[in-house]
């Protein structure tokens, strides 16, 4: 049971990290549909750097930097050149899937070192909870820290409120004197960093070898999760854990020998995403939490 809960938590981390980043990006009014591509970039950069340097922490760093770099391509086109955000995000995923396939080819068949578990003294000795919550690797702690960081950041800090202002009404934010485009560039880069780290977590902790398109739709699920969480970081955690649980269900089913074809079990995360989106849209029919300027261009010369 303990192991099961730990596995669920670990499985949810990539989606959680990528989702948190995308949440910040979207709060600033930018819809980046390239999460899947950015995660792949993070994954391949992490894996490659670990194979070269041998240190998994360097993998996190490279994953984050790769995520930022690829997100600047998106920022340049959508924010500076004002291209359509949906199509550009899609292009980013197509581009990054191919690029990582090319870069990752030499890594096929090689195994990367995993992130070590860090036990927090005293806390990790608590029965049950200690093992589940306090003897994990650094990115788990970071992801949980990030939830609260983003939550309080948006509520209580000036930067958080500026980002929200830019996302909710860019004309007003501009007239007070904030640089809408700069805020959006930074928020999108933050999203890229988180997606890169989320992607990096897959080879560093879950499956330590490269396969083309190894994120298998996790980036898209992260995007759906942001909508499902109504742009609230803490709800994002709940959503990510549900998805972790559903993903793990297929392994449980296999272990228990349930007589369900594996393809149907593999479908569950995608079907659940659709169901979750439908339910949340039904519940929030009249109350939309989406940032008001999500996906809209800002001309910047008024």
């Amino acid at each position: 049971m303990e192991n099961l809960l730990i596995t669920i938590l670990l499985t949810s981390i990539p989606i959680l990290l990528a989702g948190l980043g995308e949440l910040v990006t979207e709060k600033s009014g930018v819809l980046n549909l390239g999460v899947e591509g950015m995660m792949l970039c993070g994954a391949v950069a992490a894996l490659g750097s670990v194979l070269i340097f041998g240190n998994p922490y360097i993998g996190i760093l490279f994953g984050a930097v790769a995520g930022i770099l690829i997100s600047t391509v998106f920022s340049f086109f959508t924010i500076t050149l004002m291209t359509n955000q949906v199509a550009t995000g899609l292009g980013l995923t197509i581009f990054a899937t191919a690029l990582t396939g090319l870069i990752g080819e030499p890594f096929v068949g090689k195994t990367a070192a995993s992130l070590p578990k860090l036990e927090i003294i005293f806390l990790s000795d608590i029965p049950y909870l200690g093992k589940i919550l306090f003897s994990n690797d650094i990115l788990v702690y970071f992801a949980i820290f990030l939830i609260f960081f983003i939550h309080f950041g948006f509520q209580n800090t000036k930067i958080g409120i500026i980002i929200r202002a830019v996302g909710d009404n860019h004309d007003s934010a501009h007239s007070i004197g904030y640089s809408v485009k700069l805020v959006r560039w930074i928020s999108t880069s933050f999203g890229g960093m988180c997606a890169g780290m989320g992607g990096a977590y897959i080879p560093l902790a879950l499956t330590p070898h490269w396969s083309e398109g190894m994120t298998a739709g996790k980036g898209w699920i992260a995007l759906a999760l942001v909508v499902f969480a109504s742009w609230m970081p803490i709800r994002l955690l709940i959503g990510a854990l549900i998805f972790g649980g559903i993903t793990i269900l297929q392994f449980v089913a296999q272990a228990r020998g349930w007589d369900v074809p594996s393809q149907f079990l593999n479908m569950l995360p995608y079907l659940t995403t659709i169901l979750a989106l439908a339910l949340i849209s039904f519940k929030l029919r009249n109350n939309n939490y989406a940032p008001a300027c999500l996906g809209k261009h800002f001309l910047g010369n008024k």
Partner: protein
Amino acid sequence: MIEFTPRKIQSSFWAILSPIISIAITIFIGSLIFKMLSYPVMESLYQVFVSPFSRPDRIADIFVKACPLIIIGLGLIFCFKANIWNIGAEGQFIFGTLCAGSFALLFPETKTYTLLFSMFIIGFIGGAIWSSIPAILKVRLNVNEILVSLMLVYVAMLFIDFIVRGPLRDPMSFGFPLSKVYPDGAIISKVDFPFIGFLGQFHYGIFIILILCPLIGFFINKTLPGFQIKILGSSIRASEFAGFNKNKITFYVLLVSGGLSGVAGVIEVSANMGRLQPEVSFGYGFTAIIVAFLGRLNPYGVVIAGIIIATAKLGADNAQMVLGIPKVVTGIFEGMLLFFLLAGETIQKYKISIRKEN
């Protein structure tokens, strides 16, 4: 400081020029990539863009490769014109193929033309069923169609995998996940050109484009529903003032687009594979998005764009065989091409000037 001023009338000069410039920039950056990966640049470009034209049968194969791209792309025109983002054409392609293929395998005795004709209808309905899921959710609950249509791609892939490994697996396939071969009546035959004979894999299915393309061009440009689609896409407010039914348009554009993807799948599999297998599409549904954009959402443009992209795809196969360049490179080209095309749209919509800071 770069300044963007909206143009009153969209520049038609840039509308034609921007796809050409986009292709040129993509080729330029592409050759830099070849150089970086230390492949011979001119030779690589020759293989990718010219070698598919080097023999008559290769030219014929360009059309074979372009056929599914063009048909899906023609369907996507409806969605993208209405500003509905159907990015799950891949799933609709697979599900349409699966429905039509199952029918052919279950009723192999049907008369030749009846069978093929029913397969087209069933393929269309199958694709439309798959796209009706995001359509209904969008119309009823305002669920994001992008995510739903994309999730359904994964579901369709797993579903066809289950079918060809389970219920429809050929007992004689030695454990390979393949269905039985289609009955003769379900196969689209190759074209036997007078005096020339067969040219590559050129098949009769390709001729459907000759019907579809003008038909869709007429529908979009000359009919009221086509006009409503365009207005919905360019301004929701204008469309509301005119009293157009937004939900109805959204629903039908998704249905038509899904249906045409299904038809594309039927043709592709009946003409080239002749049986169901786990992989019936090779990313056609995603590539078709780029085809639709490169063709500037114009039916005739889509045909040209489909041929260009198909050429590059076949060229990439040649480049892999001759020079060992990995095939994924085409994806990098496609992504870049889409970026530049979109940037071209900005130039078309806005006048760009550089203003000095005071």
